[in-house]
């Protein structure tokens, strides 16, 4: 490909590496030195596998947050999709259709929240908060509050299988991340999501159909949560109605740590992956240190605040040096 001199091919808005990337490097280095067993291939692969599910969900959260919205429903939609898939499998429906039913469940949830935001004009916080509760409740109703365990081998392959030693969920996550990256960078919808986050009014005045863009992005987010739900059910060999509790917070934290501000308009999926890595590495470290779950929750909250705080301080420091 021929390149024009002078003019870089990449739009500036997606080029920068978030400052938190260095925090990730430091975390991994320190952990490799101090914690025996952290640096092994099997553990690192384990982190990647664990992070795959979060990565898929966080992609959707990235879209919502860039548009200066938010999606609180991804965690419970993930649970609901797992439950629906489990029920479908137990009912003897073919695997492909069972998977499709789980994904469609997520998509439908997304279309509902998206329509509420786009055409009724609800705040994304309210619409997705409502969906969060509805999906949770529906999951509990459908499953009678209990997990739906025991699936056939061929379905579990989607959670446990490996292709050339690479876990299947990781491959799917990588494909999805690549698609979302491409969407944000090379499609109209992607640009419009940035534009809406930058200024909804200006976007509308430029002839962009803001409502349709919002519908699309919440639908994508719901669909991704559905995919993650199906994969997680396959991985855990059960569809559990509360498996996704708190995932929306991990997803939002990943996005924000990754440098996409809650005010929207900039950021991107690469940064979010750094955020996902930080959250996943952190969970792994805390597990290896055998910290109890309540302490894990406490520490993760603290780390999120510290990581973003450090990023802001670094930026201010850099500005002070320049000015």
């Amino acid at each position: 490909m021929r390149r024009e001199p002078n003019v870089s091919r990449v739009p500036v808005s997606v080029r920068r590496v978030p400052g938190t990337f260095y925090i990730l490097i430091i975390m991994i280095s320190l952990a490799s030195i101090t914690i025996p067993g952290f640096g092994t291939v099997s553990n690192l692969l384990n982190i990647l596998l664990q992070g795959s599910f979060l990565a898929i969900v966080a992609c959707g959260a990235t879209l919502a947050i860039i548009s200066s919205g938010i999606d609180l429903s991804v965690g419970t939609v993930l649970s609901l999709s797992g439950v629906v898939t489990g029920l479908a499998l137990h009912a003897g429906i073919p695997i492909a259709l069972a998977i499709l039913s789980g994904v469609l469940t997520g998509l439908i949830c997304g279309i509902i929240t998206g329509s509420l935001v786009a055409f009724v004009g609800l705040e994304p916080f309210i619409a997705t908060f409502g969906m969060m509760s509805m999906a949770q409740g529906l999951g509990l109703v459908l499953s009678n509050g209990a997990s739906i365990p025991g699936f056939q081998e061929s379905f579990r392959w989607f959670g446990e299988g490996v292709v050339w030693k690479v876990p299947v969920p990781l491959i799917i996550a990588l494909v999805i991340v690549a698609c979302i990256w491409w969407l944000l960078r090379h499609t109209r919808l992607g640009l419009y999501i940035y534009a809406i986050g930058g200024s909804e009014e200006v976007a509308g005045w430029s002839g962009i159909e803001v409502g349709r863009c919002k519908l699309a992005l919440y639908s994508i987010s719901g669909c991704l949560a559905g995919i993650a739900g199906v994969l997680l059910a396959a991985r855990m060999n059960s569809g559990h109605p509360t498996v996704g509790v708190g995932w929306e917070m991990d997803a939002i934290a990943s996005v924000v740590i990754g440098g996409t501000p809650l005010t929207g308009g900039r950021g991107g999926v690469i940064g979010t992956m750094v955020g996902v890595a930080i959250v996943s590495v952190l969970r792994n470290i805390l597990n290896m240190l055998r910290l109890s779950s309540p302490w894990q929750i406490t520490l993760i909250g603290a780390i999120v605040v510290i990581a973003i705080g450090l990023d802001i301080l670094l930026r201010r420091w850099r500005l002070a040096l320049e000015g």
Partner: protein
Amino acid sequence: MGDGPLLKMVGITKEFPGVKALKGVDFELRAGEVHVLVGENGAGKSTLMKILSGVYRPDSGRILINGKEVQITSPRKAQESGIATIYQEFNLIPYLSIVQNIFLGRELMTNTAIPRMNYREMRVKAKELLDSLGIQISPDTLVKDLSMAQRQMIEVAKALSLEARILIMDEPTSALTSREIEHLFDIVRALKASGMGIIYISHRLEEIERIGDRVTVLRDGEVIGTKDVSGLSTEELITMMVGREIGDLFPRERVSKGEVALKVEHLSRRNVVKDVSLEVHYGEIVGLAGLVGSGRTELARLIFGADRFDHGEIVISGRRVKGDHNPSASVRSGLSFLPEDRKEQGLCLSLSVANNVILASLRRLFPHRITSPRREMNVTLDYVRKLRIAIPSPFRAVKSLSGGNQQKVVLAKWLCTQSKVFIFDEPTRGIDVAAKAEIHGLMNELAEQGAAILMISSELPEILGMSDRIYVMHEGRIVKEFTRDEATQEEILRYAMGGVGGAA
């Protein structure tokens, strides 16, 4: 081009709840002319232009382009009809690049099986547009990194890329320096020569003479008249706009000045403000002149405590400012700051007029921390009357007010604190002639009652007309002090531009 007008608007009416914004307006634009639209704030200019750019629909009336009737039902429809608008608040998205902004909503896609954004072609076209406007910036620069003047040029580039035949410019020079204005005017002349029709909204009378071919005056939603600019006197124009004679634009009697109210000594911050000393006395209006970027606003922010200073000393009403200087302490010691950007820093736009007025005086009005709606209302109505703020109700959100009335609300807010020391940063930017005269009158009144005023302004007539003394800044330093009698526009400009060996 045919002989008929490029654009014709006939009998346009528009009513908002409670207000008849336009009462049957006729307007006409020829190809290759700059048609200036003037009128006080609230006269209906913006409404008329928003109808033309598809933001509002008219209640009745017809719009004809090249003699053919068009329905402008949306901004997109306006674009397709060849109408482009450069709004006063720029219509650009800060974190997108120049290319992305110029083509927003009309991206070029590749012809591949899966179409994607064709940034290469868009970039080439954007570069051509920028070159044709004489701008040397990479099209990948983010808009947030551009100056106001550059953003404006990007807006022009966007209009050109739309192949617009009708360009609406809403107060295009309000944020520009005089050099940038020259450049803009050159471009406007070039566009005009290429046959574009330009509707130019402005408050600056001298611009009308310089750039306008015809001028239409709107008042209270009606057209007062359309005239050729040549042969039209300023007085005539102002009379048309306000419907009454305005006497002296800068009426003033000055009482003798009192003690020192504000004293600044050797104040410095990094390389934006360098070793500045000045004083303002009670009963005195002191002008602070200088080009945009000379450090005037930065100095005001230091004095008010919005930024920290590295060296120096500030004394407000005899009280020395300590290291932990901040706006809250400034307000308590009786200093008021009317910022340049009133929408961002002067007002809480979505709050009511009443809330905004009492916002800085809660401590004084309600010492027991419990507010009283009746007291709030009485205080507000008092200022609404005193400052002649035109509002239907004190409960109305300030964002719905015109610029002049908004500025009056900011002033009311500070008057309410009963402070005696004021810093006005560009007090009349974007405000129409009549409201301007009123603001000036109020400033004079304040000074007569013994207040000390430091006024930053880019408009030299305002500086000269209002000030007792004038400081001129250049590159962060005060390079000259004038008394009222010594100062002339030429002299101030000479110092402001660094023409006299003041700056190191």
